[in-house]
């Protein structure tokens, strides 16, 4: 039989209906690892010191080159970044520190690659535009991202891909078609998540952490929601592709959330659908009526639909709970 799980909630309830003494209750909070123990604090201190150290050092280096010290010879400038870069990668590869710490160092090195490109552009006035800069940065850290398999690096990589796509449209194609860009960004972000899942499934990387998965899902859904709402309000820019993407992605997302028993998917997708219909409602009701009925219907719609969503989340959770008994 599995070890009984003592949660904060349970301790609160038992304390309410018993004469449990405070000091003993406090011990129970500690014994059941609800409060951070010595080991947790040790991890915390390490993580705290290392993250702050790398963050300060790397931003210091970036500020240093942003200052563009004219009297400093270009070889010294480039040399400085490169030496630091090699040192950091060396530590990340050869030290025996734990994986998270080495990951943080590699993340710092990943940021420095950007600084190196910037310094290079600054010295030689390469005339490269922002797209080349971000694309180069993305390509040159790709290998580290795959090898290190560190959450924050995966996120930096995705952020760079997003920026590169945006810059490509703006500077290379020379046109900014929001609908098209948002469609593409949605697809790319979603595929990225699927790729991570597939890699994890085949044991190529350890499973992605929840927070990374959630950030990507949140970004993708925001792109789609904004895109659809924008198109509904401004019907000159209709794109059936966006609607098709929504029709495919939303049911799949809900299906996945149900399979994983994760209410996060239900909540975000539900809220997204509510917002999309809200823009439809605002457009139709406010165009036809005098606003009075519009405000009334919108308020009832928002309160009703979100209550309904909460109701279904609570219900789903109850079902999963009962099935797990």
């Amino acid at each position, binding site marked *: 039989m599995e070890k*009984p799980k*003592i949660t*904060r*909630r*349970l301790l*609160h309830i*038992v304390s*309410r*209906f*018993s*004469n449990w003494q*405070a000091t*003993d209750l*406090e011990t129970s*909070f500690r014994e059941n690892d609800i*409060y*951070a123990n*010595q080991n947790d604090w*040790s*991890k915390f201190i*390490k993580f705290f*010191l*290392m993250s*702050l*150290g*790398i963050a*300060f*050092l790397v*931003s*210091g280096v*970036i*500020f*240093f080159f942003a*200052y563009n*010290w004219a009297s400093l010879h270009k070889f010294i400038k480039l040399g400085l970044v490169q030496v630091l870069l090699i040192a950091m990668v060396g530590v990340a590869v050869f030290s025996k520190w*734990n994986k998270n710490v080495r*990951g943080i160092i590699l993340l710092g090195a990943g940021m420095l690659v950007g600084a190196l490109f910037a310094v290079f552009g600054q010295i030689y006035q390469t005339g490269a535009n922002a797209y080349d800069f971000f694309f180069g940065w993305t390509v040159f850290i790709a290998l580290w991202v795959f090898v290190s398999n*560190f959450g924050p690096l995966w996120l930096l990589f995705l952020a760079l891909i997003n920026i590169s796509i945006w810059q490509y449209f703006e500077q290379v194609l020379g046109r900014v078609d929001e609908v098209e860009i948002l469609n593409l960004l949605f697809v790319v972000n979603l595929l990225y998540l699927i790729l991570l899942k597939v890699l994890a499934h085949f044991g190529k990387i*350890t499973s992605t*952490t929840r927070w990374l998965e959630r950030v990507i899902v949140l970004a993708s859904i925001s792109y789609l929601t904004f895109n659809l709402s924008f198109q509904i309000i401004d019907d000159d820019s209709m794109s059936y592709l966006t609607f098709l993407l929504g029709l495919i992605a939303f049911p799949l997302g809900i299906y996945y959330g149900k399979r994983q028993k994760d*209410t996060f998917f239900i*909540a975000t997708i539900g809220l997204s659908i509510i917002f999309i219909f809200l823009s439809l409602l605002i457009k139709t009701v406010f165009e036809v009526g005098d*606003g*009075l009925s519009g*405000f*009334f219907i919108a*308020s009832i719609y*928002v*309160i009703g639909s*979100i*209550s309904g969503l*909460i*109701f279904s*989340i*609570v219900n789903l*959770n*109850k079902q999963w*709970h009962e099935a*797990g*008994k």
Partner: protein
Amino acid sequence: MKQENNVNSLLQKLQEKHGDTFSFDQVAIEKEVEIQSFQFSNLAVKILSVIGGLLGSLFFLGFLFLFGIYDTPVVALVMGVILILVAVGIDRNETSVLLDTISISNFLIGGFLIGFGLVEQIGGDENLLIFVAMIIASVSFFFAKGFMLRMICVVVFNGSWLALILENRINSAFHFQIIFLLAGFVYLSFFEAKLISKNAFWNSIYKPLHAGFLVSLSFALFLLANSWKMEVYLFNDWISSVAIFLANLFIVFKIIEGLELSEQKNKMWIYGLSVLVFLPTFLMPSIGGAILVLLASYHLGHRAGTALGMVGLVYFGMQFYHDLNLTLLTKSIILMVSGVIFLSAYYFYNRTFTGDLIEDKELN
């Protein structure tokens, strides 16, 4: 059943430990466990209910004003009172999580209508309005039962104090509010067991009170960092700086006490390092505040608070260096030197305490 097993094993353990001196009401405990599992709520559900409550009440207020409620302030006043009563009434229901959105929006619309009615009907000034808001928040807090509405009452109550300070142009008093919020938050974070075992009332208000203070304190820290930009001129920032510094030291003391570290030498090291980390926050007290939120929430195992503390630390830190009136070169040197100090601290920490090189899988 898993949950009943958990309850039974805990009760059994307590009975073995304390014998007959430990008395409990098993039926009530099991019933409450059942109710709370039905009232399932997580961060997503809470955020949903706030979004729904805010957006819904905004639209509804738009409707009321187009409808012409501004012509009849008495009606607004009466309606406001009714809506608040309805909100609290709904919240006393056991299934309140499902109806949170409705009760939050009713509460907000009601509060707004009462305020509007008072100003239009009896020409009440701002101070009167603020007092009324405080009274509504306090009374509703006592009568409501749900987490969300109670938390909102705490935030409204603390917000009213802030409004009172700003309205009467006694801006420096804001630092005393920071002290109040700090004291409340720290007390709630480190005396949980004492508070929840006091009586049933304290037990039921603990969580919303804690969350309410967390939100209020975070907002106060944000204001402290951005006061000049928001044209709220605060003076005597040193009061907040000292308070936050002392609160941070107190937290470190409580954490060390709880961990029961045996070696005096280690304790001294920790205090010394803490003072070293906290001292520079005198330059920007919000950073110290963010560290405080982070430490207290990590101790409690409170994830939302830990995340809030981290975000605050990054945000205030970036703001500090951005606003610093120095050349980029000086800034970069300060940053690099600090970076090297932190990294050396890491190195020494790792060398001194190597007993716990455990692979943690939180981030990969």
